[in-house]
């Protein structure tokens, strides 16, 4: 799209950490409670209260750091970011500034040119979330709900190494998959537990100076990230090509209008006056601790994908699809191990009919009506020719409806494939006798009529005859005559 222009994008992702209690207090982080029922004195910044750090958030940040093979700080420090806003109870946000817990990480994504591309991750730091302002509920007032205040966040900051909206989305999806694999975030975007801001700028191709950037906020879905960035790229290029200048500012993405709008800049530039929080002490981590956390890491998406290709020799695109979620990958692997059939055949059914059925009913894989072993049972019957692929779909639907195992359904409905040649020959002869002129035309050279005759045989056998055998038998009879 950009032609003479090179696009430069960096993402700041806020992932809510999946803890029971808040980062600095014992209040619950459960979503959807009544306003301020989960905001305790500490979350409210009451006079005299003090923060104490949640052990779990440290472990989760370290897990993430190891997963992106980053440097884990042996000593990290919490700082105060000072500014006034009604949803920020203390008048400062406790975050990490000079010494974050995670630095210099990296992630491989599929670049636009199709080849793998390394994206640097500058840092990932721990901080507390703010509350929520409710503007609609009252006409002259804004309501403040501080339930979310103090919820633990991991802010993940990428290097400005993304070169298009699609790369940005690929990166964001990769992080999203990763935090869910690690079990450190539920990644629920509707509930705001996975949010993204994008820093976007453009510069003449070949130029190595960065152009002036704008920060896009409020990008709460993959689709919006892509649309917002693309809109912003176009806007910036238009401005520059008309000889204008880009203003460094924060812009809000409006999904309804599909445009970004400048946020009216505050009465003055922010000066956050960061300084080390004197209520908290440095977080010191030992090598032993980091090693232990490292051992607890699950197999990560990239490794799993590679293993699926090597071990099950799957098509790489299928391996990618199956490892997009840890649960889907586990389901496939269980089915593949239970099956005597080729893993690729199992993969086709998981990606095809099963995913289709799940999507129709809006179920996720953990709640599939057909278990991994049961699906393996079905695929095995195709592999050993007990049923044809066509019949298999009928059996699948019956299984989905809960009518039992593949074998049980095949038996009760007598769907077993006919492979007995004498039985097939008998039907073939009956069909030939029943259709003299089609046979004549065939013999006169209209050989495509074979298909019609095969169809007749399948009809007579209720689709159970082995298609290959039927073909062979028909040809033999017709060509003989």
């Amino acid at each position, binding site marked *: 799209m950009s032609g003479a222009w090179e696009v430069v994008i960096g993402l700041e992702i806020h992932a809510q950490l999946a803890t*029971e209690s808040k980062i600095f207090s014992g209040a619950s982080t459960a979503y959807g409670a009544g306003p301020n029922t989960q905001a305790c004195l500490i979350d409210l910044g009451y006079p005299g209260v003090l923060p104490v750090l949640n*052990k779990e958030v440290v472990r989760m940040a370290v897990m993430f750091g190891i997963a992106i093979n980053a440097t884990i700080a042996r000593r990290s420090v919490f700082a105060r970011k000072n500014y006034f806003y*009604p949803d920020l109870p203390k008048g400062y946000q406790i975050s990490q500034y000079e010494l974050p817990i995670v630095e210099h990480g990296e992630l491989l994504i599929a670049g636009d040119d199709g080849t793998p591309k390394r994206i640097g991750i500058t840092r990932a730091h721990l901080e507390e979330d703010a509350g929520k302002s409710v503007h609609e509920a009252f006409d002259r*007032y804004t309501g403040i709900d501080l339930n979310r205040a103090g919820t633990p966040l991991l802010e993940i900051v990428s290097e400005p190494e993304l070169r298009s909206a699609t790369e940005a989305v690929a990166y964001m999806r990769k992080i999203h998959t990763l935090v869910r694999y690690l079990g450190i975030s539920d990644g629920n975007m509707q509930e705001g537990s996975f949010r993204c801001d994008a820093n976007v700028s453009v510069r003449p191709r070949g130029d190595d100076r960065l152009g002036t950037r704008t920060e896009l906020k409020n990008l709460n879905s993959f689709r919006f990230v892509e649309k917002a960035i693309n809109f912003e790229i176009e806007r910036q290029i238009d401005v520059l090509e008309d000889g204008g200048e880009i203003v460094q500012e924060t812009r809000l993405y409006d999904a309804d209008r599909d445009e970004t709008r400048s946020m009216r800049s505050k009465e003055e530039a922010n000066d956050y006056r960061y300084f080390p929080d004197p209520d908290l002490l440095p977080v010191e981590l030992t090598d032993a601790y980091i090693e232990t956390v490292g051992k607890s890491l699950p197999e990560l998406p990239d490794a799993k994908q590679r293993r699926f290709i090597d071990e099950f020799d799957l098509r790489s695109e299928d391996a990618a699809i199956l490892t997009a979620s840890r649960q889907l990958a586990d389901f496939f692997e269980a089915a593949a191990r239970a099956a005597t059939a080729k893993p690729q055949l199992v993969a086709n059914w998981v990606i095809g009919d099963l995913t289709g059925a799940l999507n129709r009913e809006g179920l996720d894989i953990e709640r599939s009506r057909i278990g991994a072993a049961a699906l393996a049972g079905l695929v095995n019957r195709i592999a050993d020719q007990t049923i044809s692929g066509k019949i298999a779909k009928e059996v699948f639907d019956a299984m989905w409806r809960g009518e039992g195992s593949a074998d049980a359904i095949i038996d009760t409905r007598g769907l077993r494939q006919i492979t007995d040649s004498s039985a097939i020959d008998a039907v073939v002869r009956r069909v030939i006798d029943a259709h003299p002129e089609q046979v004549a035309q065939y013999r006169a050279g209209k050989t495509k009529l074979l298909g019609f005759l095969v169809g007749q045989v399948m009809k007579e056998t209720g689709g159970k005859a082995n298609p290959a055998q039927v073909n062979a038998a028909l040809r033999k009879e017709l060509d003989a005559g």
Partner: protein
Amino acid sequence: MSLDRDQVRHIAMLARLELSDDDFADTVAKLSRIVDFVDQLSRAATDDVVPMAHPLNMNQRLRPDRVTEPNERDEIQKNAAAVADGMYLVPKVIE
């Protein structure tokens, strides 16, 4: 004066403090006095001295991830100037 009126106005805005016009001059004078006084620090030789953020060098203690705080909203909100439907009210925020 080490601080001028505009600087003091800027600081007051950052700190969200309204200053009365009558003693604004006095505020500027006293703040300048304080800044001049602390300017003595520039005398100290502090090359590669590690800043001391804390009197004791200890590490942060970590608490177990347990929910310990009950909902006390109604008692807590008795201290608030304006609440409705469990929410704290502030003048409409225009975004």
